[in-house]
């Protein structure tokens, strides 16, 4: 397989700043995420990682700078419009539909892909029936992929935390996103669950070709899964590069440990 010298950027964040009143949460952050890569965003608490994700997915709007997705300016879009473009996400504090079954939760991920007449849907007949079955088939594939067959009918709110995170990932995958944003996918997990989740993230990337941006605190995980790392501190980007290089960067070490090298 011959690769182009420099893959086209899927997402470009250009000088984005986000403010909440007097607090500057992000200050002129620029970064590019290439098609097909796994990019980790790291940084101490309060560095602006989640804010960045929220800006990309349309929950916040930057007061300066541009967000370009697939070559088009997407700075001012609303969350559901961003979702329609093929950006799916998970949340730091799991945001599942707790009263709905796992299967229904994942099916909501496909709402955007459904078309056609309400009348036919209501009658469960004709094209609407075929459509529902096709979507179900894809959802079953995602369920198999993430190994959650056994909990298909369980209300999401009853699952242990680790599984909820996995269902949330399943819902995001059901939308067949081009770009997947994961906000601390491994927070609160034990070692085994983290290993599972790391494997899923790598598999999603290789099997579905999904570009992934993830926020993560566990440096071991970051080193294992990511192609590239972006480091934020106090709302600014302070470093960027391959994981090995970033880990040795004195600026990054400073930000994390707060010690001087002089």
């Amino acid at each position, binding site marked *: 397989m011959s690769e182009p010298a420099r893959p086209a950027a899927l997402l470009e964040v250009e000088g984005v700043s986000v403010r909440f009143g007097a607090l500057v949460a992000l200050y002129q952050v620029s970064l590019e995420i290439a098609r097909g890569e796994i990019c980790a965003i790291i940084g101490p608490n309060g560095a602006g990682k989640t804010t960045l994700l929220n800006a990309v997915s349309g929950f916040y709007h930057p007061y300066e700078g541009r967000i370009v997705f697939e070559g088009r300016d997407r700075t001012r879009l609303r969350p559901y419009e961003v979702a329609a473009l093929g950006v799916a996400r998970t949340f730091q504090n799991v945001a599942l539909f707790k009263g709905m079954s796992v299967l229904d939760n994942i099916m909501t991920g496909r*709402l*955007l892909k459904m078309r056609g007449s309400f009348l036919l849907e209501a009658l469960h007949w004709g094209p609407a029936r075929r459509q529902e079955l096709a979507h179900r088939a894809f959802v079953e594939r995602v369920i198999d992929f993430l190994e959650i067959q056994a909990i298909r009918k369980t209300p999401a709110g009853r699952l242990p935390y680790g599984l909820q995170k996995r269902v949330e990932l399943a*819902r995001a995958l059901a939308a067949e996103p081009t770009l997947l944003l994961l906000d601390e996918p491994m927070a609160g997990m034990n070692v085994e669950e983290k290993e599972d989740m790391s494997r899923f993230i790598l598999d999603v990337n290789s099997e579905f070709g999904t570009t992934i941006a993830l926020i993560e605190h566990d440096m071991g995980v970051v080193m294992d899964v990511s192609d590239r790392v972006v480091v934020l501190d106090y709302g600014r980007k302070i470093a960027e590069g391959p994981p090995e290089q970033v880990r040795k960067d004195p600026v990054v070490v400073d930000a994390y440990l707060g010690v001087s090298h002089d």
Partner: protein
Amino acid sequence: MTEILRAVAVAPFQDMAGSPAFLVEVLIGGVFAGLMYSLVALGFVLIFKASGVFNFAQGVMVLFAALTLVGLMERGVPVAVALGLTTAVMVALAFVIERLVLRPLVNQEHIILFMATIGLNFFLEGFGEMAWGANVKKLDIGIPDRSFMVQGVQVNELELTAALTSAVLVVILAVFFHRTRIGRALRAVADDHEAALSVGIPLKTIWVIVWSVAGLVAIVAGIMWGAKSGVQFSLSLIALKALPVLILGGFTSVPGAIVGGLIIGVGEKLGEVYWGPLVGGAIENWFAYVVALAFLLVRPQGLFGERIIERV
């Protein structure tokens, strides 16, 4: 002692058996009243399902719809046109509520949205009376209030029409919300605003749809109640009767609203007619609330409500 027991547990049933035609009439009256309660309860359920908000203003929406319809007809607008205009007003109301009340309060606690609907309640009440006047009005859209006899049982045409209309409406709504993707989107929105946005559900659209449908249900309820007892302020108080219906049927269940309404309607009519004389009457006024209280103690999620699951 045995006298009391006999009067409570035996005599009423002997009465029922003694005159089956009368019993059927009482039952029909109960079913009719029940469907009317169901209609009001439905409006609550729709909005509760879609936003997790108990819409305190639903009763006033019924009054407002009826007032608008009567007001237009008093000004000489033909029935069909007046109905169309009232529908337009209720849909417009849904848009305004979404823009001015719901949108600024996205992701707030449910109690805050609930308080907002109390405000909405007072606003609509005042606005309706300002626009259309506060007198009791007669609503006549051409459904005859005649009775006829079927096999010795008296049936009222208006009640029959109302019952059929509610039944059709309920079937349409149940199918719409259970079988279409809007239904799934709706439950998603009710559960978690943020997550719903992230999977690409436009909150605004869903809310406008739901409040519009609740408005349409309010029109139907307003017409039926208005035709029966005149359009007046007390119409908004039937919302109070819808509460026990909701507790019985479950806040999130469309079929529950119907079954709950029927149980309350039939129960209070039977109680009034056969047991009423024992306690000096007026059972009708408190029966619904006592049943609701019993349900709250035993089965707080109602007959059809989603199980309340709490992880501890």
